[in-house]
């Protein structure tokens, strides 16, 4: 018995180690160059992709668009179990291989680096909320687009016409038969579909999340009311996610989809997803570590506006934005409450690990959306992101000469808090009326310094205080800023009385400025 037990333990160990270590694992192999490759952009790209490049002054002969050297792929494929996919942009291949095989691959003269990827679980960036009474849903539906200037856009005939939006999601279950999208199919606004998980073109299954997201760009309810702002846009629908599990492969699908979207002329990518603690550490949210973030930045280099949900980790342990919202060229969209311009509790906070502002802007984090059958109220920055993508499409329709990053900056600038920002709301909710407005708003408060007591007092101008206003509708934003324009601390005050708000700050913090915002007016005070 004694020896049997020892044998059991021994073989258990061997079996476990074997199972985990000897079976093929996924790796990414990066190549040093694209030697001897030729590329004809006119045969590779859709006309709309060429048009975007021409409009934004981008070269048609960018080396990152050249194909991966097939002889490199062949050499790698001969040494590994399977070659799963490759990326032109990142000049990389994804393979399944054992550690021994990878040791051989990494010694090839044209391989610059290899990295391991494996599968783990996390959740999509959305939450169900069926708890609201039906009466309120109609109000919320109207508000989710009206607060972003739906009436103004309607008046100007701005519905995203001529703008092509790619949506990357878990699938679009039932969307091909859903009443919310009938107009899009009738008008042939769907220009391409691709399921990168199952490697086929059918995308109308896999999960309702994509259906709901799409509806927040261009959906319509049975009464004919719009759920999003860009009902005239064209669409590319890509499935890049699995609903129940989220393996590392999804990041590769995402990058492959971005290349596909670029090739097929996408102007905007909306992706309502984020990868966090299952794969990364918070200090890796720097826009350079995650594969998907590097791919997203590359998409931006191609002139595409990448719009991504900030994430729903705000009330969780992780707390901050995930990848690819951490990428510097990705417009990360946070969520606000339907009632007011205040951060909705689950919306992920910024900044990035390297202290860059995230989220960049905000939109309503609880929306009425289409689901696989019918309509429902859903929570999540997943739905704030498509509202923003729709808004961006409208503004790009109006200002077609803008480059993607110019549009990015203008979207930030049109936020209701601009030039104030914080790491909960970014620059706030964009509105077309602020898109090109330079008029400084009139002061709504005064800041009084009390040197003796070492504090500041904010005195709200009585003409800008509404005693009948509802809770959270009159907000004072206060932040302590260091010399590099990073926020050291920030807060939001619900102004419920005309009493002064007395603000003390720590003499030990390296504050160089105080920045405050109330009802459209931002004021900065240098701290000596």
């Amino acid at each position, binding site marked *: 018995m004694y020896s049997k037990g020892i044998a059991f333990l021994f073989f258990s160990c061997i079996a476990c180690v074997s199972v985990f270590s000897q079976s093929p694992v996924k790796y990414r192999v990066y190549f040093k160059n694209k030697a001897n490759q030729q590329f004809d952009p006119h045969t590779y790209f859709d006309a709309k992709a060429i048009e975007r490049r021409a409009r934004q002054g981008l070269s048609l002969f960018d080396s990152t668009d050249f194909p991966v050297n097939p002889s490199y792929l062949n050499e790698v494929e001969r040494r590994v179990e399977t070659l799963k996919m490759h990326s032109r942009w990142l000049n990389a291949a994804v393979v399944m291989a054992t550690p021994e095989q990878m040791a051989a691959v990494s010694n090839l003269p044209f391989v610059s680096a290899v990295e391991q990827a494996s599968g783990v679980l996390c959740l999509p960036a959305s939450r169900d909320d069926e708890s609201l009474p039906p009466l309120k849903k109609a109000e919320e539906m109207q508000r989710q687009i009206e607060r972003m200037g739906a009436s103004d856009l309607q008046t100007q005939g701005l519905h995203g016409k001529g703008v092509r939006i790619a949506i990357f999601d878990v699938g679009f279950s039932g969307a091909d038969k859903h009443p919310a999208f009938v107009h899009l199919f009738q008008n042939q606004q769907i220009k391409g579909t691709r399921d990168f998980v199952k490697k086929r073109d059918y995308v109308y299954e896999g999960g309702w999340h994509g259906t709901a997201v799409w509806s927040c760009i261009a959906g319509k309810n049975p009464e004919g009311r719009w759920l999003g702002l860009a009902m005239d846009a064209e669409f590319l629908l890509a499935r890049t996610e699995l609903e129940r599990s989220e393996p590392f492969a999804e990041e590769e699908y995402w990058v492959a989809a971005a290349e596909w979207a670029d090739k097929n002329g996408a102007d905007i990518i909306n992706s309502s997803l984020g990868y966090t603690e299952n794969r990364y550490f918070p200090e890796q949210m720097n826009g350079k570590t995650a594969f998907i973030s590097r791919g997203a930045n590359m998409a931006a280099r191609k002139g595409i506006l990448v719009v991504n949900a900030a994430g729903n980790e705000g009330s969780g342990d992780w707390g901050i934005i995930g990848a690819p919202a951490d990428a510097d060229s990705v417009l990360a969209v946070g969520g606000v409450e339907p009632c007011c311009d205040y951060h909705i509790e689950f919306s992920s906070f910024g900044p990035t690990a390297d202290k860059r502002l995230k989220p960049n802007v905000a939109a309503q984090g609880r929306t009425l959306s289409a689901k696989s059958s019918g309509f429902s109220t859903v929570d999540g920055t997943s739905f704030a992101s498509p509202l923003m993508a729709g808004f961006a499409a409208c503004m790009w329709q109006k200002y077609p000469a803008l480059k993607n990053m110019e549009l990015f900056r203008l979207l930030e600038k049109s936020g209701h808090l601009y030039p104030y920002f914080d790491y909960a709301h970014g620059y706030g909710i964009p509105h077309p009326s602020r898109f090109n407005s330079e008029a400084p708003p009139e002061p709504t408060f005064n800041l009084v310094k009390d040197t003796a007591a070492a504090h500041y007092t904010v005195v709200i101008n009585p003409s800008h205080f509404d005693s009948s206003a509802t809770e959270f509708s009159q907000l004072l934003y206060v932040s302590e800023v260091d010399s590099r324009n990073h926020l050291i601390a920030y807060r939001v005050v619900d102004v419920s009385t005309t009493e002064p708000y007395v603000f*003390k700050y720590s003499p030990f913090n390296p504050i160089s400025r105080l920045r405050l915002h109330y009802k459209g007016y931002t004021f900065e005070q240098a701290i000596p």
Partner: protein
Amino acid sequence: MKPLIIAAGLFLLFGSAPAQNVILDKDPAIDSLVPKRGPNRKHYLHTYMSFGFTTDPGEAGARSRQGTFGHYQLGLRYKRRLSQTFALGYEFAYDVNDLSQRQEAGKLVPDTLQYRRERLIFYNALFSPYLRINFGRRGNQLGKYVDLAAYGTYTVSHVLFQRSELPDGRNIRSRTTGLTYFQRFNYGATVRIGINKIILYGHYRLSDLFYANWNFPEPARLQVGVQFVLN
């Protein structure tokens, strides 16, 4: 007095008058400090709970009932990360080992009589150092791993439950402590296979449970079960 001074100091440093309602107050400078503690950080401390059962029958004369839960643990485990692949650690646990004796001909432990039910329960304090081998890339997660551990237990208390049924249908229950035939110190090896917070384990006792001079056959040595990381 000291808490009052601290509270007053904190108010002076960070306080704001309560005339208005502060609904969000964030301190990113502190929030973004890289922590040293976490599932895949330098240090990780967590509690766990185990439920296991006996899988081997034991030697003839001391056979245990198989397949019923009889091993429970509530423990505290520390992990010190050495690299993305390796970690060392140790744990303390309250370990309950419930050997439910099979009542059959030839039974010798603890006596030759057959009862309706007989359980020999040991309440142990356990200490176990271990080596962890992790597999695959992960963030701040436990990930996939194999633990190879040695353990030692000291029996803090014990009890022998015996239940007999008389011919008239009445039950007689006896509870015996102060047994002198078992060793208080035991040791063995453990293998754990884990995926994040769920672990399968095998727990093998290498030491003999009974003193050699009693000539008792050895009861089951191997227990397997499931363990849950609680926090």
